[in-house]
């Protein structure tokens, strides 16, 4: 090959300028892109394991409400949402536990456990769910949302999912 081509001054300047220009473009461009896409890189997990306390807090056979709040941060704004979950220990066994959301599947009113009716009653439109969360009566289209549970070091956790 070796047909040596002599670089003249103009070509040299053009190459150096293109090289430095590319570096400057990257140095300026990358932070600019990072700045614009930053919020997308910080989306929060909508689901997580949540501690609901030791089993002793929950009498066997009686669904008991546990209330908690979750904070979401969007930019400089914080939103605190409160949630309720009914925990039922069926037997002495540590993992024999059910956890149901207290949001009615009809229009998201809060259901409450009624000992006399042995069911979750929705105050808005008289929806009734049994102790397994299944619909017994009323307008709710589906069963109460059930959360996965686990017990670690004498603390019950539920796998909370929004919506």
């Amino acid at each position: 090959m070796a047909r040596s081509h002599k670089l003249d001054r103009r070509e040299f300047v053009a190459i150096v300028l293109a090289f430095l220009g590319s570096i400057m473009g990257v140095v300026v461009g990358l932070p600019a892109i990072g700045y614009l896409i930053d919020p997308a890189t910080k989306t929060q997990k909508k689901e997580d394991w949540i501690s609901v306390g030791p089993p002793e807090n929950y009498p066997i056979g009686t669904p008991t409400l546990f209330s908690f709040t979750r904070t979401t941060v969007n930019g400089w704004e914080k939103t605190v949402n409160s949630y309720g979950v009914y925990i039922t220990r069926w037997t002495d066994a540590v993992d024999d536990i059910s956890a149901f959301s207290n949001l009615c599947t009809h229009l998201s009113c809060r259901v409450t456990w009624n000992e006399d009716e042995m069911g979750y009653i929705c105050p808005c439109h008289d929806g009734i769910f049994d102790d397994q969360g299944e619909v017994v009566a009323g307008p709710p289209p589906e069963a109460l949302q059930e959360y996965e549970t686990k017990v670690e070091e004498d603390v019950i956790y539920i796998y909370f999912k929004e919506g």
Partner: protein
Amino acid sequence: MVLKVYTWLDERLGISTIYDLVLDRKVPKVNWWFTLGSASLFLFLIQAVTGVFLTVYYVPSPDHAYDSIQYIMNGVAFGWLIRGIHHWGASVMVIVVFAHMLRTFFMAAYKYPRELTWITGVFLLITTLGMGFTGYLLPWNQRSYWATTVGTDLVGTVPIVGDFLQAVLRGGTDLSAVTLARFFSVHIWFLPAVILILLGIHLYMVVKLGISSVPKEE
């Protein structure tokens, strides 16, 4: 290939003509003071670009202005850099534009036939100061709040129409959400539009008439 594309575009757009007229125009032998105009233009472009980027997160409302800037500074990647450049670039721009005016004045470059360049330049200096004044309020912190309170109080001392002018600036008797909103609007729409028009005339005059040479001693 690149050359072909360039030739195709040049034939239609006349890029090389523009290049020859604007960048390859004849200039007298001058010194470093003559770079202040280009420096002003460069600073304006930097302020424009960083300003556009800041509006992505900044919210001009008393409820959000301060927090949104805190978020830009601490929450967003490189937000500190972009606001830092805008913040310091603003001060540097006022200094450079002012020095540019002084150079023109002391070298008597405003004389015939360059009076229009000078006049538009004076208004560009004033709009630059206006940008500084309106931008200063936007962080909505104690300093900017009280600086704008004092700044608009000054207008109130104008005879007869002072109170009215002050109310126009503030959008009411007190500094409020209305003040913040209108300062923001003036900062990002009105003044930049005025600057672009003036800058167009200013640069056209510079290209058309050429620049004056360094004054010689008698």
